[in-house]
C-alpha cells in the first residue's frame, strides 16, 4: 500500500510506519498502517471523523502509544525508551487544532521556552530565532502580548512559530485550521504553504482540499482505522480508485 512517491527521489526516509496497530481498550483504532514519508515530502491526511487520523499522527511523536508494529522516525524507533521519545520529540514539531499555546507566557516566551530548556540555547540567541520565525509568520509586533490577547489565526501562527523555533526536521499538523473562521484560515494556510516551499517534511491532517491540491506530494485517505488510498493529488482527486474515497470526495467537494 506504500505509494511509490516520486519527488525527492531516493532521499532518506523520515517517517516509517510498518504494520502499526493500536487499540483503545477493545476498540481497534489503527489497523495495519503502513506508511513511508521521505525527506521534504508533504503528506496530507484526510478522511471522515473518527477514522483515526489524529490517532495516527499522534503516534508519530508518541502522544499516543501504539501496541503493535513499528514506527521509525528520523532513524530512531519509538519504543518505551524515554530517551528515544525525547529525542524524537525534539525533532518533530506539532501544531494542534486548538493551538495549545501556554497562556501564562507571552508570545515570545512561548517561542523561546523549549529552545532554552531543551536545546539549551542561550536566551539572546533563542529570542533572535523566535523573532525571525515570528516575522516569517507575520506577527513580530505581537511578541510581547499574551496568547489570550490574540485572534485565533494569530494564535495558530504563533503555535507554528513556536514549533519552528525548535528547528524540527518534521512538522505534524492536526487540523490546524478547523477551529478558525474563514478569514483566518487563509492566513494560516499561507504560512503553511510558505513552510512547505522551504522544503520542510510535513504531515498534515486537514480537510482543506485546496491546500492538498497545491502543496501535497501525496494525499492519504483513511477510514475506520485503515489507509484506504494513498496517491499524488491529481490522481487522488481526478481518478480516485476506491469507492469509499469517491463517496468521501463527492461529499466534501460538493457542498
Amino acid at each position: 500500500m506504500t505509494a511509490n512517491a516520486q519527488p525527492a527521489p531516493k532521499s532518506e526516509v523520515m517517517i516509517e510506519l510498518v504494520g502499526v496497530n493500536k487499540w483503545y481498550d477493545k476498540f481497534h483504532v489503527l489497523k495495519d498502517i503502513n506508511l513511508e514519508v521521505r525527506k521534504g515530502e508533504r503528506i496530507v491526511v484526510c478522511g471522515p471523523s473518527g477514522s483515526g487520523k489524529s490517532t495516527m499522527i499522534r503516534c508519530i511523536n508518541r502522544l499516543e502509544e501504539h501496541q503493535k508494529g513499528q514506527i521509525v522516525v528520523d532513524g530512531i524507533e519509538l519504543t518505551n525508551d524515554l530517551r528515544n521519545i525525547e529525542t524524537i520529540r525534539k525533532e518533530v514539531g506539532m501544531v494542534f487544532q486548538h493551538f495549545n499555546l501556554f497562556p501564562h507566557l507571552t508570545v515570545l516566551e512561548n517561542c523561546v521556552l523549549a529552545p532554552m530548556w531543551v536545546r539549551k540555547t542561550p536566551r539572546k540567541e533563542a529570542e533572535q530565532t523566535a523573532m525571525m520565525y515570528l516575522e516569517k509568520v507575520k506577527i513580530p509586533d505581537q511578541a510581547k502580548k499574551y496568547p489570550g490577547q490574540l485572534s485565533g489565526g494569530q494564535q495558530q501562527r504563533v503555535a507554528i512559530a513556536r514549533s519552528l523555533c525548535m528547528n524540527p526536521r518534521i512538522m505534524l499538523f492536526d487540523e490546524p485550521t478547523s477551529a478558525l473562521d474563514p478569514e483566518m484560515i487563509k492566513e494560516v494556510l499561507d504560512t503553511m504553504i510558505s513552510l512547505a516551499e522551504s522544503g520542510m517534511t510535513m504531515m498534515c491532517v486537514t480537510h482543506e482540499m485546496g491546500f492538498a491540491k497545491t502543496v501535497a506530494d501525496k494525499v492519504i485517505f483513511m477510514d475506520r482505522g485503515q489507509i484506504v488510498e494513498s496517491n499524488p493529488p491529481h490522481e487522488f482527486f481526478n481518478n480516485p480508485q476506491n469507492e469509499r474515497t469517491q463517496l468521501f470526495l463527492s461529499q466534501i467537494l460538493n457542498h
Partner: protein
Amino acid sequence: MAHNFVPLPDQPPPPASVGTVAWIRANLFSGWVNSVLTVLAVYVLVTALPPLINWMFISADWVGTGREACDSGGACWVFVANRIDIFIYGFYPNDQIWRVDAIFIGLFLLTAPLFFKSFKYKVWLGGFIIFIYPIIGFILMRGGMFGLSGVETAKWGGFTLTLLLAGVGCIAALPLGVVLALGRQAGNMPIVKSMCVLFIEFWRGVPLITVLFMSSVMLPLFLPEGVNFDKLLRALIGITLFQSAYMAEVIRGGLQAIPKGQYEAADALGLGYWRKYGLIILPQALKIVIPGIVNTFIALFKDTTLVIIVGLLELLGMVKASLGDPAWPDVSREGYVFAAFMFWICCFSMSRYSQWLERKLHTGHKR
C-alpha cells in the same frame, strides 16, 4: 451599486455615573424587601456601634501601670500595653528580644523587593527566603552558637510562636503538597500513587488536635527511653504533615483544571516530565488555586491556637495565661479583643495579598 464600507467613528461610552440619590434608590430601596433589610441593618448599626466605639476608644484607658489606672469604665488597654512584650515574644529573655526583632525586620526587608516589577532576581531571593532564611532565623532564635546565648524552645511563645508555627507550616507544606498532588496524579506509578492517596486520606481524616496530642503524648511512648526530641519540633512536624495533605488536595484541583492540550503541547515540544510540570502545568495550576491555598493558610493560622493542648503558648495561649494574674482582674474582654484583632490583621492581610497576586498574575483570557 457598489457602496464603500465606511466605518463609523468611535464614540465615548455613555456616562455611567448617576447621582447619589439615584444610587441609593437603586441599590438600597429597590423593592420592599430591600427597603426593610436596609432599615433593619441601619437600626442594628445605630444601636450596636456607639456603645462599642465608646467602650473601645472614647472612655478607654490607654496609659498607666496597673489595674487602678483603668477607672473610666471603658476598655482597659493598659493591661495589653503592660503585657505586650509577653504577648509578642512569650518568655524570650528581655535582653535578647532584639534577635526576634532582627528576624522579622530582616524578613520584611527581604520580602520588599519581591513587590517591585523591575527587580530581576525574584526567583533567587524567593528561594533564599524559603530555604535559607528559616535556617538563619532558627540559629538566631535558638542561639547557643556564634556567641549568642542559648534560648530553649520552651521559652518561645506569644505572637512570635504563632508566626513561626504558621509560617513554617505553610512554607513546608506547599512543596510537600505539590509532591503529594503530583504523586496522586501519577497513574503510571501505582505504588507511588496509592502511597500518596493513603497519606492524604489519613492526615485529612484526623483532626489537628489529635495530631498534636499524639505527637506530644503518644510519640514518646514509641521512642526509645531517653530519646526526647523537642516539643516544638514535634508540633511543627505534625502541623506540616497535616497541612500538606490539605494543600495536596487544593493543588490537585488546580492540576485537574489544566486542559489536556497544555500537557500535549509540552510533551510535543520535548520538555520532559519535570520541565513540563515546572514550567507549564504548575505555574498555571498554582495560579488557579491561589484562593484555595490562601484559604488553607488562613485556616492553619488560626488553628495554631490549638498547640495550647501540648503546652505551647502562642498568642492566644499567652493572653489566656495572663488573664489569671490576680494583679489584673477582669480584663478578659480586652485580652480576647486584642488577640482577635491581631489574628484578624494577619488573616485579612493574607487575603488582600492573594487578591493582589491574582490580579498581578492575570494574563488575559484562557484558551
